[in-house]
């Protein structure tokens, strides 16, 4: 199989175009004209998307069905010594091509949407600059050939996410949300980095024996190779019963969990909704937050070689999906509901990866499939929510209502996305969710299957709760009454995404993206019926409680009592964090260290300064300014030197 096509050689342009556009727009165009800056940034991403489609078409259209990983472009970035070098390059394999298509598509549509959405914002040019930076970083992450390159871009997406969450930097809540996101993900990345270092250490140690033509010990191909994983799987790490492999995979997963906002590192994502809505759609729904899933998928053979690490992925994913779905039902801020929904759906992707095994890898395909479909319908949900927020100037769903007639196109697209996420045939979510459920049941994880099915019902509830409250019934406020449809430039992305959300499920993902043997395509009918029943039940429940009136919802909330209150307060996770950090860490660790720093370390520095100054004060009096004093010291010194020489040498003869 030969990938000698022209587009393959120019695959590096896919991440490079947004970089060039970022520099051009940020430094040259932005000060000139914000209108041109926005258009140029958008055009660059559209070119990028076109290249990604060409690449995908060429890659997947080759005759063989085993799609090998190809590295068309690479250069040496760091070289420490022979056998320990780090490359930068572009890796083309099924999942990276898939992610490139998703990222460029959603990014291009979000750019287009932002031209309308950010129209009146004074930071218009800055916004597009950041968006381009983000797109570049994300594409670099996706195309990473080794784990160090991935880490570099991993941090870059973190920075762009930070910049965009804190985009309204005059708003205090946005600034603290951006800090929170950055600190939490940085904390998680500490684990990731430690994992990389452990892998690199042992990778280098065994590189000569176990490598098979890889360029360095950080290459994914090497880290995933059976020769390497079996070698370190048999070495004890000394921490619990973990082998070196399990330990490093758990640490790497910590980074993935931070970026993908898995419990208990999920706390930053709901707050990240302080950023502009297009940012939430692009970064905090469709692309960056699935980077963790992508990382686990990238290292899937290594995770699979350590069974316990993969089990942890499965249970963390399953717990997060259930946990976030429960909170999602109780929130009133439309973007926060969507944020918790994102958490829940990423939990799905994680658990699908977790239940997959090298022998039955359906979950791997299912996870990537769900990532693919979720990107479209979740971006659509956010963009539609953005259009609504744009129209009614509030995030609270109880201040909306009756928007179905005021905003018909937004309404239809939102409905399609809601049906897709709920998993109603024939919308996209149905197919990917079915595959996840089938993979969980197929590999004998009954508990996870039950959780997944429950979450499917809860997803339908919280999504149609928003739908019924915001779009049906009577307008509840003055703003909702006078809402009007969004401008055309915002509607086009909505329509495109709605079409994608409707048809993306028909992509035969199994034949494109799989690990090991290609799974059988098609729908498992028993599971499909169960999942659809759960979704319909959820929609019915949402209709029963929220359509038209709220008395039933209020009484239901009262019936659940304390559970409802706890869920409304997000199970007090934020408060627990604050308690742990403020009352324990700050008081017992940080404050003593700060005291030590201020008094002992700074005190030592101040003391040396004080001593020097005092000595200077005293010595000042020797400086009389009179030549005779200096002469005296000179003569005395000379005499002293002569005496020393005399004493040292002595008098000859």
């Amino acid at each position: 199989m030969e990938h000698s096509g022209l587009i393959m050689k120019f695959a590096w342009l896919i991440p490079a175009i947004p970089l060039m556009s970022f520099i051009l727009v940020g430094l040259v165009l932005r000060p000139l004209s914000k209108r041109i800056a926005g258009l140029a940034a958008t055009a660059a991403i559209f070119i990028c998307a076109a290249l990604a489609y060409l690449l995908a078409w060429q890659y997947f259209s080759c005759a063989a069905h085993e799609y090998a990983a190809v590295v068309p472009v690479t250069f040496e970035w760091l070289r420490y010594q022979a056998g320990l070098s780090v490359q930068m390059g572009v890796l083309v394999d099924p999942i990276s091509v898939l992610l490139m298509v998703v990222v460029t598509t959603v990014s291009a549509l979000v750019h287009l949407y932002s031209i309308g959405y950010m129209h009146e914002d004074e930071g218009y040019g800055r916004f597009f600059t950041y968006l381009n930076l983000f797109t570049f970083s994300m594409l670099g992450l996706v195309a990473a050939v080794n784990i160090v390159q991935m880490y570099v871009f991993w941090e870059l997406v973190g920075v762009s996410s930070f910049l965009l969450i804190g985009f309204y930097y005059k708003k205090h809540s946005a600034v603290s949300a951006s800090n929170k996101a950055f600190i939490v993900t940085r904390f998680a990345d500490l684990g990731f980095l430690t994992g990389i270092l452990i892998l690199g250490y042992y990778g280098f140690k065994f590189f000569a024996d176990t490598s098979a033509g890889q360029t360095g010990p950080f290459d994914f191909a090497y880290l995933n190779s059976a020769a390497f994983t079996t070698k370190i799987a048999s070495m004890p790490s000394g921490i619990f019963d973990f082998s070196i492999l399990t330990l490093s995979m758990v640490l790497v997963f910590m980074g993935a969990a931070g970026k993908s906002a898995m419990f208990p590192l999920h706390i930053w994502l709901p707050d990240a909704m302080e950023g502009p809505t297009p940012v939430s759609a692009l970064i905090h729904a469709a692309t960056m937050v699935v980077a963790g899933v992508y990382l686990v998928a990238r290292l899937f053979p290594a995770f699979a070689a350590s069974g316990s690490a993969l089990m942890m992925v499965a249970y963390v994913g399953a717990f997060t999906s259930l946990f976030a779905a429960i909170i999602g039902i109780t929130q009133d801020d439309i973007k926060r509901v969507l944020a918790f929904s994102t958490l829940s759906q990423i939990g799905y992707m994680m658990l699908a990866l977790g239940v997959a095994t090298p022998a039955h890898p359906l979950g791997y395909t299912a996870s990537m499939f769900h990532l693919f479909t979720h990107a479209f319908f979740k971006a659509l949900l956010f963009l539609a929510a953005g259009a609504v927020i744009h129209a009614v100037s509030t995030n609270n769903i109880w201040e909306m209502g009756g928007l179905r007639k005021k905003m018909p196109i937004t309404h239809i697209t939102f409905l399609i996305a809601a049906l897709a996420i709920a998993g109603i045939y024939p919308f996209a979510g149905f197919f990917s969710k079915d595959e996840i459920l089938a993979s969980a049941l197929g590999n004998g994880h009954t508990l996870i299957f039950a959780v997944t099915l429950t979450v499917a019902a809860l997803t339908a509830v919280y999504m149609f709760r928003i739908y019924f409250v915001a779009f049906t019934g009577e307008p509840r406020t003055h703003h909702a009454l006078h809402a009007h449809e969004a401008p055309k430039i915002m509607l086009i992305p909505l329509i495109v995404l709605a079409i994608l959300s409707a048809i993306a499920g028909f992509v035969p993902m199994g034949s494109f993206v799989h690990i090991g043997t290609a799974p059988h395509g098609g729908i498992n009918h028993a599971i499909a019926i169960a999942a659809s029943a759960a979704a319909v039940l959820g929609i019915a429940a949402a209709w029963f409680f929220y359509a038209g009136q709220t008395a039933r919802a209020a009484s239901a909330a009262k019936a659940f009592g304390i559970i409802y209150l706890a869920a409304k307060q997000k199970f007090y996770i934020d408060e627990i964090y604050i308690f742990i950090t403020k009352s324990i860490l700050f008081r017992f660790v940080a404050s003593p260290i700060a005291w030590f720093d201020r008094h002992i370390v700074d005190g030592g520095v101040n003391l040396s300064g004080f001593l020097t100054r005092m000595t200077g004060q005293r010595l000042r009096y020797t400086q009389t300014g009179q030549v005779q004093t200096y002469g005296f010291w000179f003569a005395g010194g000379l005499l002293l030197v002569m005496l020393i020489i005399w004493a040292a040498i002595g008098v000859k003869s």
Partner: protein
Amino acid sequence: MIEFLSSLTPGPHHWLVLSSILFSIGLYGVLSRSNAVGVLMSVEIMLNSAAMNFVIFNKYISPGAVDGQIMAIFAIAVAAAEAVVGMAIFVAIYRRCWSIDVSTMDLMKD
């Protein structure tokens, strides 16, 4: 008596001691005189003691040559020129401060 005295020919040590005494007197003067002219005179004494060393060593180490004497004359000429410059500076200082007391000159302190 005369013969005894004439037999006491001074050797190099005597001359060098004389030169050292002159140098020390000059150094003492430089460090202790408060009148600038006095300081200058003391410097001249020190210079002369150094010039004297040239002559002494010339006489006792290479009596045939005159290098030391030439150097001594050279030093005297330089000292004369230097004295002129020094006096000129004192005149300038006197015009400015109405005093040539070196103990009041402490501009270097600032």
